[in-house]
């Protein structure tokens, strides 16, 4: 949660002092997580593999997407998955200039909250856009599907701007 090394205070780092050169070594830590999905997340990512998006109906009738097992407000178990659209609206966004390993689009793009048509909550994903001036809250977007789906959120390769903004 912080500005990076181009920050206003880049001082610090190695100060060997009288103790000789500081040793450094690259350290890579890998967590090979193998997670059970449970029935709700499992249905969602299975549907993504089939290029379909599911939400779930909350106690107050709203559709939560991506779906959750329990009502975000009341904690009541939820039962009714519903299909939502592969198009939606940006509800908030920020621009990502510095690309990091693992991010779905390996060029500058928008990180965005997207409310899919038919859903009442927003999902986080990325929007492949030419620059921040092309992106706006309220803009319409459409899913670009991954060529080789695996049953994961990354089966949505990214979103792309869908014609003109609203």
């Amino acid at each position, binding site marked *: 949660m912080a500005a990076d090394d181009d920050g206003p205070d880049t001082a610090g780092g190695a100060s060997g002092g009288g103790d000789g050169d500081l*040793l450094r070594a690259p350290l890579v830590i890998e967590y*090979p997580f193998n997670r059970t999905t449970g*029935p709700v997340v*499992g*249905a969602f990512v299975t549907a993504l593999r*089939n290029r379909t998006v*599911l939400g779930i109906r909350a106690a107050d009738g709203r559709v939560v997407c991506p779906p959750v097992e329990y009502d975000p407000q009341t904690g009541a178990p939820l039962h009714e998955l519903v299909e939502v659209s592969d198009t939606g609206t940006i509800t908030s966004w920020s621009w990502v200039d510095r690309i990091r390993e693992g991010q779905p689009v390996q060029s500058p793009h928008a990180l965005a909250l997207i409310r899919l048509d038919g859903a009442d909550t927003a999902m986080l994903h990325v929007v492949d856009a030419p620059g921040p001036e092309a992106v706006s809250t309220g803009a319409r977007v459409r899913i670009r599907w991954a060529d080789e789906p695996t049953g994961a959120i990354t089966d949505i390769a990214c979103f792309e701007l869908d014609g003109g903004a609203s």
Partner: protein
Amino acid sequence: MSSEPDRSISTMPDGLWTQPTPSVPVDLGDDPVRRQVVPASMRYDYTPGLATTRFLRGLAEKRFLGERCPQTGDVYIPPRGVSPVSGLRTTEQVEVGPKATITSFCVVHIGFGVNAPPTPFVSALFLPDGAAVSLYGTMGEVPHDQVRIGMRVEPVWVDDDQLTTSMENIRYWRPIDEPDVPAEQLKGHM
């Protein structure tokens, strides 16, 4: 594809960790996703600190450099800059070993990791002469059923041109021709 046996959450006792089974409006096919392999890899530029740097530089010279607790006089190795007993900063470096005594050992029949020797092998704790705590390592040049607590040993180093600032400088430890240390003398170090 994912036909391996799966302990789904719904097999937990009723009322404990049950999850609702939702109705699904689309056909999910015969092979719904039950598991996800989600690797997370992170890269760090690790620095070991002042005291551990001194220790690692000593290893490159085949020396064990511990540091002394200013309160108890005990020498800790590998040092991390403070005495784990008093919490006080250690300032005095003390060379210990390289001769050592086995304070505990284990005959390992299951190998873990790429660096593990062929099984069975003996992993052990080696108390360098003059130190208060033991270093971890493996035994060589002795049948595993002849390893014992109190056994006197010395490190076998890699060739000089292979020395780095790493514990990997020690290939293994081997017995030396000295009488065993009685267990009561190892009290407090095991």
